Structure formats: C-alpha cells, structure tokens
C-alpha cells in the first residue's frame, strides 16, 4: 500500500528537507511537514514512532531526490506536532513518541457519531467490541489501539457522553 500513498508536491521539492531560516517560510514548511507525517501515519496505521527509525523511513528520507531530513529537523517537526496535540513523548529523552493522527476528542466524536447513527445510545460495549467487532469493521476507528480508544472514550466521558465501566474481563463503556 506504499504505492497508493499520495506524496504531497513538497516531498519532491529539495528545500523541503532543509529547515528554512526565514520565519514565515519555516512556518509554512513545518505545517506541510506536520500534515505529511500525520497522513502518512494514518495511511500506515502507525501509532508510535521512534526518532532514529523515523529518519530512515520514506517519509523523512526521499531516496529519489537524495534528500533526508536531519534528526534535529525531525525533532522540530515532532515538537510542532506536540504543540498541536498530535504527539506525546513516551520518554524523557524524546526518542519515542505516540502519534495521534486524530486527537482523542476527534476519535471520540467519530465513535459517538457511529453510536448515535445506529441508535445504540444507552448501550454497553466492551472495548474489544468497539475496535475489533464485526459491526465496526467499516468504521475508521476499527483497529484503533486500546490506549488510543481509552483516551477517546475518556474524552467523551469528560463531555458527559459516555461512562467507562470496569467489567469482569477488562473495561467497557456505556454511551448516553
């Protein structure tokens, strides 16, 4: 499915791989990078990234034009993603991170929309049912990693649209 990913035009523009000194230019460049990283991770269903591994991944390394984003620049892009709420560092040294191509609130909204659409308010689901059940197979949140699903439901709970409950063999959720 690597082939089916559509790279943005910037990907083949050599200056894209040099952190621009002009502030305005850099802002636009970083916005393009954030968008590329998120859409790429979404396409590949990636939930965590390792900075060192990332440098070798096609997203930061365009072999066709022999340009590679430096580790420092990758850190800058990641920091930008963190500020936008799409990334969380997993360690103090910032070597690994959680990447959230949708923020928990966005996921929560999608799940709640599906629940409402199917008239399943006031129903109880296990977390497994939601992410791996047959009913959600065609939904975007199908296959969502459990930590991400839990975060999304927590966001809904904060809005008063759901309640996370403890069940015998794990966690469940009741939508309102």
């Amino acid at each position, binding site marked *: 499915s690597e082939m089916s990913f559509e790279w943005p035009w910037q990907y083949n523009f050599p200056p894209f791989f*040099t952190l621009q000194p002009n502030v305005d*230019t850099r802002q636009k460049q970083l916005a393009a990078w954030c968008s590329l990283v998120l859409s790429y991770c979404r396409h590949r269903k990636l939930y965590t990234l390792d900075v060192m591994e990332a440098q070798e991944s096609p997203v930061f390394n365009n072999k066709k034009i022999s*340009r590679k984003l430096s580790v420092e620049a990758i850190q800058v892009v990641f920091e930008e993603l963190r500020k936008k709420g799409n990334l969380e560092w997993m360690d103090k040294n910032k070597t690994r991170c959680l990447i959230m191509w949708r923020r928990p609130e966005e996921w929560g909204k999608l799940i709640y929309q599906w629940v409402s659409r199917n008239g399943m308010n006031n129903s109880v689901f296990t977390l497994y049912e939601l992410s791996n059940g047959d009913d959600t197979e065609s939904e975007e949140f199908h296959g969502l990693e459990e930590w991400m699903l839990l975060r999304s439901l927590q966001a809904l709970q904060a809005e008063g649209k759901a309640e996370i409950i403890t069940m015998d063999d794990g966690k469940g959720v009741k939508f309102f």
Partner: protein
Amino acid sequence: MDRFLWSSGLLEMNETLVIQQRGVRLYDGDEKAKLDVGVVLLSTHRLIWRDLKNHECCMAIPLSQIIFFEEQAAGIGKSAKIVIHLHPASPNKDPGPYQSSKFSYIKLSFKEHGQIEFYRRLSEEMTQKRWERTPVSQPIPTGTGSQAGRTRAVGIVGIERKLEEKRKEMDKNISEAFEDLSKLMEKAKEMVELSRSIASKIKEKQGDITEDETIRFKSYLLSMGIANPVTRETHGSGTHYHMQLARQLGDMLLAPLEERGGMMALTEVYCLVNRARGMELLSPEDLVNACKVFESLKLPLRLRVFDSGVMVVQLQSHSEEEMIASALDNVSEKGSLTSEEFAKLLGLSVLLAKERLLLAEKMGHLCRDDSVEGLRFYPNLF
C-alpha cells in the same frame, strides 16, 4: 678674551688632559661673553673652552699666558668663578673669537660647580709648568678644524669629533634622500595637472577624437592618478576631509558602479580608489568614514552593511526591490541557483551574489536547499 685662539680641540702629542668641567660660561672681564655654556678643559699646556653643542666652536689659551688667577665665591644667584689674569696678546697672534678686548682678564663661571677641584688642578699645573719641560712637537695648531688637526686626532676629544662627523654625514645623506622623494611627488603633481588639462581639452574637442582614443586615454589617466586628489593636507582632518573625499568618490565611482551592476564590495572600492590616486593613498578607515557621509551629502551612492557584516557601496537608484526581483527572476528561470552560478550570470563577485540571494530569502522570495551538494536557492514555493 682677545687672547683666545681658535683651536681644533685636539690635544698635541705631548699634551695631556688634566681635568675637564661642564657647564662653564666665559666672561670677557666683567662682561658675559657672547657664547653659550660650554666645557672647559685643562691640559698640561693650555686652557681650552669648547661649545657644548657646536664642537667646531673651540678655542684655547696657552697656560704660559696666565699671569695669575684667583677665586671669586658664589653669591645669591651667582655661580662661583675663577678670574684669570693674562699677558697681553702678541700683535701677530693667530685669529681668535675676539679681535680686541678692553679687559686683561677673563672669568670662568661654574654653573655646574667643580670650581674647587678645577682651581686646585690649575694651581698644580701653574706651579709644575709642564709645558716648559715637554714642549709640544709642533706649534699648537690654530685655524678652525684644519685637515692637519683632524688627522692627528687622539684621545676622547678625537673620538667624539669622529662620531660627530659621522652623524653629520648621515644627517646630510638622509635629508638628501628625502629631498629626492619630495621632488618626485612634485613631479607627480605636475603629471596629474598635465593629464587633467589634456582631459579637459579632449572634452572640448569631443568631435575630433574617436571614442576609442578617448577611452584609451581615460584608462591611462586612471592608471596614472586622477586629477587633483583630495588629501588630508589640502583639506584638514575629520569631517570636512571626509565630506570632500565623499564628493570625490561620488564622481569617480559612478561609472565603475554602473559597469558592475550597481554594487561593489568596499574592498574592491578601496583597491580601485587607491590605484587611481597613485601617491596620495587613502587609509581604509578614511574610506569607510567618507562612505558614511554619502547620504547626508545627498550623493547618489550609499554604503550598505549586510547582515553578515559585508560592506558594499551601491548606487542609490539600485534599489533593494530591484535587486530582490532580479534575484527571483534569475532563480525562477533556472529553477535553482547557487551563489557561484548567480555570480557568473550577473558578473558579480560570489560574495555579493550570495548577499543578494540571502536578501531575497530574507524577504521570503527564495528558500534554500542545504545539502552535501552545497547551498542552492529555489523560488519560495511554500
């Protein structure tokens, strides 16, 4: 004082120096002699007085001429003196500083003391009368600095005289050398004048001379020196000098600036200006200061300092917008450019080409690709 004879100041073969004392003024009787303070020397044969600065000024009296001498104590504001009474001068004596004198005695005034010792030694010599026992081999030479005197130079006085002669010779050589240099500069000024008058004649008769000839002559002028250079000498120092200089730079830099696309690095300007000036070279500091007043004098030139610290002189008409636009046009046309490529395209130095690209980048028209292949500039597509 008329008893004194001019002397070379050199001692004779059998003559020995007994004592010498600095800071002694001579009195003709009770009157101060028209001579500066000097050194008085006592030899076995003579009493010698020599000027402190001008060693050529030296005179002597044979001790045999002394009748007697006495001390005169010092008083308030008065130095201690020795009064020496003398036999009258022989009518056919050799010349001395005084042709005649109404006094038959002289005084030695000791400004720097030493009169007690001098008096004692003079008394000894006068009692011993050594000049009678060992007469000098030849009559005591007279006449100022005769050749004979020089060749027979002995003792400290001789060495001193030799040194003095050497110094004088050197002084003469140095001043002769500088005279040549100032003559050369005078000639250079004449040449500049001449070329200026030819230049103005060419201007008057522009039709009669081909453009080619004019240009060739112009280049000769440039390599020789521009007309009437403004120098610190002619225009004092400080701001006034820099203003005059700025005006002159304004005149002479216009054409070269236009040839070079409106901008020259300050180092390049420095070389060009000093080459044109020939003799009256400018210091880098004066050049910078002159360039700084371009704006206040409303001259069509500007000194520009780039962010990197590189300084250039540019035409005022050569606006930033134009520079940026031309950089963007060239980069867009070629897709991307390095500083070197851009420099070649515009016939600029690489340094200035880079400054222009950086400026366009700063304004957001260009962006960079910094890779192992070098620094390239692209149109800013972001």
